[in-house]
């Protein structure tokens, strides 16, 4: 694989990482919760999408219509019935970590539930376009990855517009900035939290759906992705929307391009090292100021 | 009576971004005094405490304690030098008993649990909280929380005690009770610098007051003298003294 090809593939994969990180950063920006179950939600969507394709022959991209609302509801209910009681109980705690622990437990429960029900098999939806690629004068671009990348761009733009232009989006940003003030302004904070968690989960689901035509799903596939998503949101700045996309692209590029020059181990170690350095010395991320929620 | 300066601020200034919170402030607190630091809301009183106790580092100026420059020391080092402080928003360790809370402070000068307990019980008697020693800190009434806050700081055996609005939020009877506690602490040999919003109480307690407004010292002297200072009246008393007197 030449350098150009590595760059292109890195950008495409990076877009997918960015999409997943977008959901994570949204939940953090508004609720100040690190959602450790984000990867598990991604996995659930992958498995659902796979089985809809396998049993009903539903094209994974079409399964969006079914799965995304489902994931939204799942996220909304998770926030309403699991996270909210913990947040309420920890109102006066200076450093609440109950919600973080809860999502970590939830993640393990979901992963192992799927393991019990569906087994540990590696599943991938082998669609007609799974192996397809576009050939541009010797440069080969994987079609499903390209679709996933385009979807990422669309979702990021739509999401940005939603946050800035709609009433609900503005309410969400106000809540992220200051929960107390948002309450005074008459914003229904629990509802905003529910919607934020719902959208975050739906975005994780969307990432999963775009992965399934070319990436194997298994119960712990989420762990691979969530660690990357953590790294990305820290690099881009926890809570930053553009940071998620740029951080994703950066990680995708580093993984793909560095693989040309060094072993995957060293790439991974380099990435973790960069992650720790940012966390320690620049927790606001690469781009300095955070997106103002 | 020898006036030995225990604490001395020399031209202390701190800026946050472009905002000057404390501006060229100088004053001293002599050993054995009770000095009041007063001023309208947002004058920078708590910032002064945070500067003395090492939470903030001044942009300019020096702070001497016992003749030693303490600028740059961390808050725990400042405490180890002998400056205890309370917080305006009290910070009890809520899930532990009153005695436990005070023992944390008392451990500063001992590694022994028994010694620490004895010291803590002694301090609890001094502030009048002994009968509540086994109660969880989060279940205390406001006045007792304030006493606990003072007791914790006192257990570190400070030479100088910084009290940040310990009388705020108390009813008149409680204020009198708290004033007695402060006087008792003073009689035990502790020098006190206090921030107070309840002006009458501040005047009653302090031998000397320093008035600041917009981070700048505008007056200093005995309470009765300061209350007649036109600039003070303009900045602070003019609007509120009448209300405070009632």
């Amino acid at each position, binding site marked *: 694989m030449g350098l150009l090809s590595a760059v292109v593939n890195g950008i495409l994969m990076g877009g997918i990482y960015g999409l997943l990180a977008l959901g994570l950063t949204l939940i953090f920006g508004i609720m100040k919760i690190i959602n450790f179950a984000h990867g598990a939600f991604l996995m659930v969507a992958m498995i659902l999408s796979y089985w809809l394709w396998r049993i009903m022959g539903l094209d994974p991209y079409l399964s969006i219509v079914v799965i995304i609302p489902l994931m939204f509801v799942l996220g909304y209910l998770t926030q309403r019935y699991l996270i909210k009681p*913990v947040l309420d109980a920890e109102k006066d705690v200076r450093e609440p970590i109950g919600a973080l*622990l809860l999502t970590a437990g939830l993640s393990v429960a979901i*992963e192992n539930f799927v393991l019990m029900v569906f087994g540990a098999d590696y599943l991938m939806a082998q669609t007609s376009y799974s192996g397809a690629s576009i050939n541009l004068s010797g440069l080969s671009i994987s079609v499903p990855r390209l679709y996933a990348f385009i979807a990422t761009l669309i979702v990021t733009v739509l999401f940005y517009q939603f946050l800035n232009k709609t009433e609900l989006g503005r309410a969400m940003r106000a809540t992220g900035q200051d929960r107390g003030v948002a309450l005074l302004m008459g914003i229904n904070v629990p509802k905003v939290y529910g919607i934020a968690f719902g959208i975050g989960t739906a975005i994780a689901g969307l990432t999963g759906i775009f992965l399934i035509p070319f990436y194997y799903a298994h119960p712990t596939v989420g762990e691979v992705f969530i660690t990357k998503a953590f790294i990305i949101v820290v690099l881009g700045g926890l809570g930053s929307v553009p940071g998620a996309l740029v951080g994703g692209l950066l990680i995708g590029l580093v993984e793909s391009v560095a693989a040309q020059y060094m072993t995957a181990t060293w790439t991974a170690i380099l990435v*973790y090292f960069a992650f720790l350095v940012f966390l320690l010395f620049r927790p606001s991320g690469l781009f300095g100021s955070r997106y103002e929620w | 009576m020898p006036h030995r300066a225990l604490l001395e601020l020399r031209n202390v200034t701190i800026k946050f971004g472009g905002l000057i919170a404390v501006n060229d402030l100088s004053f001293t607190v002599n050993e054995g005094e009770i000095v009041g630091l007063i001023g309208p809301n947002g004058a920078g009183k708590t910032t002064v405490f945070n500067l003395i106790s090492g939470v903030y580092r001044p942009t300019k100026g020096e702070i001497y304690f016992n003749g030693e420059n303490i600028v740059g020391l961390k808050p725990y080092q400042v405490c180890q030098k002998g400056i205890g402080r309370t917080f305006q928003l009290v910070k009890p360790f809520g899930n532990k008993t009153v005695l436990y809370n005070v023992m944390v402070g008392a451990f500063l000068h001992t590694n022994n649990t028994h010694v620490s307990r004895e010291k803590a019980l002694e301090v609890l008697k001094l502030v009048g909280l002994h009968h509540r020693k086994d109660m969880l800190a989060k279940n205390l009434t406001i006045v007792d929380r304030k006493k606990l806050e003072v007791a914790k700081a006192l257990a570190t055996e400070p030479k100088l005690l910084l009290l940040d609005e310990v009388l705020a939020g108390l009813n008149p009877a409680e204020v009198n009770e708290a004033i007695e506690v402060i006087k008792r602490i003073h009689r035990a040999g502790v020098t006190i610098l206090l921030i107070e919003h309840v002006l009458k109480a501040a005047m009653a307690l302090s031998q000397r007051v320093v008035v600041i407004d917009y981070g700048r010292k505008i007056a200093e002297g005995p309470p009765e003298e300061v209350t007649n200072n036109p600039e003070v009246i303009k900045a602070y008393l003019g609007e509120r003294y009448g209300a405070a007197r009632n």
Partner: protein
Amino acid sequence: MARLASPRYYLPVLLILLLFALPLFVKSPYYLHIMAMVLFWAYMATAWNIVGGFAGQLSLGHGAYVAAGAYTSSLLFAYLGISPWFGMFIGGLVAGLMGFLVGYPTLRLRGAYYALATVGFAEGFRVILTNTTHIGKWKTGGAEGFMIPLLGNAPQHMQFISKVPYYYLILVLFLILVLICRWIDGSKLGYYLTALREDEDAALALGINTARVKLVAATLSAFFAGVGGVFYAQLIRYLEPNAIAGPIMSNQIVFLAIVGGRGTVLGPALGGLVLTLIGEITRVVFNQIMGLHLFLYGLLVVLFVIFKPRGLIEFLEVLWNRLVNLLERREGKHAA
């Protein structure tokens, strides 16, 4: 002797005697192995609790310390012939050093940021372990794992045919650790850790060098996790990076402590005992349904965080006080 007459003293003594007597009644190696593992997990949760509970720093990367201890002693044993009895200390020290090195730069991080840093560090360490097949001339096995040479019955190298010595070894390690934690809890260090956990600014104002206290907790916790790793290596005799250094190990330790009651002396151990037993029972009853016991762990964590954030220890305290009162009253009658 008057002290011993109180149930508050003789009950724990009886309990410890019972733990020591168990191998007299249980002869099956299978059950002895399970009992040793139950104590191992109780030990690990207790070790984690020093930093995760007492200091309130949510470490999600303790697998790295377990692995550091296990690999250190095993490599020294396999290639230099250093007995794991000695390797246990070296392994613990290496892990402790690692805890210190992780603790130092993360001092300023709070809450979720600290948790993320520990995840990042442990994952990085796991990747290194997985991809390192040799250290110099020493073969470490990489992703395939590392087999510890089997010598048969070699007590001087911590290897036994019978499971009984393993059980006693981990029992003693566990009791020592609990005693140390009990001592910490009632000492200056314990008071300082509590202050740090509840309000760092208030702790600083009381003259507490919070950075040093955090480092002490992080180092101690990592040291004991490393020692536990050495025991694990000798019992299982096979080290697999993903199992020992990965999130499964790290998360499991945390989950046991949470369900048991973090921040208390006995809570984490209780969580370790109860959950591991539940896990083993489901494994027997539901014969090899993959993932069932971890599913239950996850579910229990969710339920406990929501409904009983202080953990199982709360039930035990109530039960314990009732039992003690009952016994004391009965003795009172006898005396009368």
